[in-house]
């Protein structure tokens, strides 16, 4: 299946469930197609989990979800060896992470130790347990949700973990008309139940290969790097965006270009993704944060400061 059609089918399929969230779906698919993981941060009840499930169901892929709670242990995620009385040997029982699409729900409610169990898997697509390294599936994609950090019973994600996510964005509340439509749609049964796989795992892998072929000019690579570098010099920022951020920005821009049917990246793609790709990686000075500075605001300022190629 051509990449363009894969995109269209996925968009359409998710859109039947998530009405009025075209922008969020666009970002999600860009991250998914570029092989990056996604962190959704929003208030409870805005459809984070539904979005993740809609994506998983639209692909005929293995899907598992972990509900993160304060007493969740790393072994619950990665798996554990259990002694078998019959053959007197340890057998490894795979954890939830051995899947294609992993929904880590309310990830910031677990302790940092458990959150860190995801680090290796997200960065390298493998897990090391009991001295063995196990490869994950080629498709492996994490979509995590979290409640705003200020909420009760949350542990902020460590910077290293944050950096593993290619993108973080919010869904936001939909327009009143969309909300009414949602009520009507869910009157009888949840539209999520009607979602059937519309693309195959192979299609997705093919899509990811196509993304890598999208052309990026040196000038735009430079522009992406300039944006990232600029975040490191802004006053009030303790930790700027990493080189991994530049990489994620260009990759996601490639995916977005493909999503738009283009064969090459244009400056608009880079600009559109700057906030979702860069903002969550910044660590803001506590003093600046208390004076109202937000990471999102900083990235928006940076975009308004660095001259864009035309």
């Amino acid at each position, binding site marked *: 299946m051509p990449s363009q059609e894969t995109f269209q089918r996925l968009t359409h399929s998710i859109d039947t469930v998530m009405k009025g969230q075209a922008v969020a779906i666009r970002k999600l698919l860009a991250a998914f197609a570029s092989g990056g993981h996604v962190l959704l941060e929003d208030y409870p009840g805005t459809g984070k989990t539904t979005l993740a499930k809609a994506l998983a169901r639209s692909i005929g892929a293995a899907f598992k979800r972990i509900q993160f709670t304060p007493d969740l242990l790393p072994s619950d995620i990665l798996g554990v060896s259990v002694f078998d009385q019959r053959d007197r040997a340890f057998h490894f029982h795979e954890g939830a992470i051995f899947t294609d699409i992993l929904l880590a729900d309310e990830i910031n409610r677990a302790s940092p130790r458990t959150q860190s169990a995801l680090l290796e898997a997200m960065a390298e697509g493998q897990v090391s347990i009991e001295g063995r390294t196990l490869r994950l599936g080629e498709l492996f994609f994490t979509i995590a949700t979290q409640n705003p950090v200020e909420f009760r019973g949350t542990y902020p994600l460590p910077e290293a973990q944050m950096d593993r996510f290619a993108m973080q964005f919010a869904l936001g509340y939909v327009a009143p008309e969309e909300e009414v439509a949602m009520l009507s749609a869910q009157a009888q049964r949840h539209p999520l139940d009607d979602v059937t796989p519309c693309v195959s795992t192979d299609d997705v892998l093919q899509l990811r290969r196509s993304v890598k072929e999208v052309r*990026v000019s040196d000038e*735009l690579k*430079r522009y992406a790097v300039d944006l990232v570098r600029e975040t490191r010099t802004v006053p009030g920022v303790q930790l700027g965006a990493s080189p991994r951020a530049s990489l994620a920005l260009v990759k996601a821009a490639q995916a977005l270009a493909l999503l738009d049917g283009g064969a*090459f990246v244009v*400056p608009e793609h880079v600009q559109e993704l700057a906030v979702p790709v860069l903002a969550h990686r910044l660590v803001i000075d506590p003093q600046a944060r208390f004076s109202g500075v937000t990471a999102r605001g900083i990235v928006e300022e940076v975009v308004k400061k660095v001259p*864009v190629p*035309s």
Partner: protein
Amino acid sequence: MSTPPLLLGAAVLFWGWATGLLLPAIAVAAILEGARAVPWRVDFSRRDFNRVSDLCAILFAGSAIYLFTAVGGMRVVDGPRAITVLFQWLPLLAAPLVACQAYSTAGTVDLSVFFWTLRKKAADEPGASSGALDLAYPYAALCILSASAANVRTPAYYASLCLLAAWALWSRRSRRFSSLWWGTSLAVAVVAGYAGHLALHRVQQKLEEVAFEYISGLVRRDTDPFRSTTAIGHLGRLKLSDRILLRVEPAAGQGAPILLREASYNVYKSPAWFALGAGFTPVQPEAGGETWKLAPGPAPETSVGVSAYLNRGRGVLPLPARAMEIDGLAVVRLSSNRLGAVKVDEGLGLVTYRVRVGPGALLDAPPTDFDVGVAAAESVAVAQIADELELASKPPAARLEAVAAFFRTNFHYSTYADQPVGGAPLEDFLVRKRSGHCEYFATATVLLLRAAGVPARYATGYSVQEWSPLERRYVVRARHAHSWALAWVEGAWRDLDTTPPEWVDAEAAGVASAFEPVSDFLSWVVFLFSRWRYGEGWDGVGRYLVWLLVPLVLVLAWRLYGRRRIGRARTEAARGEPAALHPGADSEFYLIADRLAVAGLGRRSTEPVSTWISRLEEGHAPVATDTLRQIARLHYRYRFDPDGIGADERQALRARVEAWLAAPGTGRG
């Protein structure tokens, strides 16, 4: 420089024309505008700029010293005018710094040049920049402002100001609006400015009137030798200030006189004393012009020095009793009257003089009919007291003693006057209240003496009693103003002060403040400055101060040019980034962008092309945005697709741009 060509030069020439400094102006204009013609630039460092800035500051200070101190043949202008002249010279004094900017590779001046604190900061963190300032426009504004100080009272000034402003604004106008709009707005501003200046002038006049009234209520009234209005009959507390008015220096080994008289009066009409038949006659100076003989005869040795401020160089001089001669008084015209008042008609703001005192002074004329009369209002009370004291039966000298004793024993001093009990205020004082201030005492004494048949006059002046350890001389404050009686006894006028001696302390208690030492010190500094300013003591020092500047300037110039580095500016190379990063930089799309920028619809540097086009669309700009989008799409492929575009598409881009540019009404506003 950021100003359009020749604007700065024109501003400088305008300044030169208005202030009459045309030759320096031509030189400065040539230097500043010449910077556009020469291909080289000097690589001034921040320290060089600091030095030039210091040079300008020293030139400014030097000019100020020169203008304020130069005397004699070198004197350009006097006092207050010097400030105006200094203001007029400002563009010349600032020219070195602006010239340095014009010829520097930086093209701007670092802000730290102007502030010590920023300089310190710059020295602490060499990398940090404190912000740069382009002096071109501020300098043009300075020229126009300084030209205003020349006060050319013709429409030419405002016209030139508008012309220069229009010139500067024209080059910076928004291309988005037509020139007609621009011109109309400017015309409105010009008219509003003119009307505003007239209104401002009106307001200033009004304010000046109000301020004058206010201030004249505050300052000391000049002594009027013809009339002295007393506070007799006033209710409430008498308030006098602490200000030091006179400084008295008796000759070595002699005590200070107790009273310094300014004037005496002969007719009382409550509440004022008048001097009748007291016309002034000029006093002729002796050879040398600074010695004035008030009475004939050889000058005695006994003398006292007095320093007094004169309001606008005019006023009555305080003199000790029996003054015969005034020495060292540098005034143009002096006159005296037969009641002993000596008046300066034309002089300086501060006079210092020595008064020689002799026994046979004839300054005060013998008594006339005016000196014996008692007005009807007070006659009953006065006659009653005179009867009680049995004055008529005593010899004249004893009458004085009796009157003094009467006041000494029965009266006390008070600056506070409460409700009158009844009758004339003076009658109240004499018969019932028996307390009052010096004017009561003096007036009552004069009237009593007259009732007793002794000719008497009412004298006003100052009582000398405070020795200032700071200044090592006597000082006389405003609250030491005093009045007393003059009595004609045995062919001479004698001072008779019947006010109880505690009056000094009583008045001091009324106004004493914790700040008195400070204000006294300041007063002394002002006095020293005034004395120096009015040409005493340090005469001609100013001319030498000017010469001190010469080595200073030479040293600065040497330090500045000893470290000069000349570098050829490589502006072409510095502009822009390596060309390799810019494939497709020759795209014709930029022609459209330039055309729209001229129309005020330019793309912002951080705005991608599609955002820009959307913005134009939302702003209902007269631009065919659909076509523009198509062209932009081709342009993007040419620019950002590493594979580039084919020759035919390249041709299509070119053709479309040409068609767009040729189409009427695209981006012409």
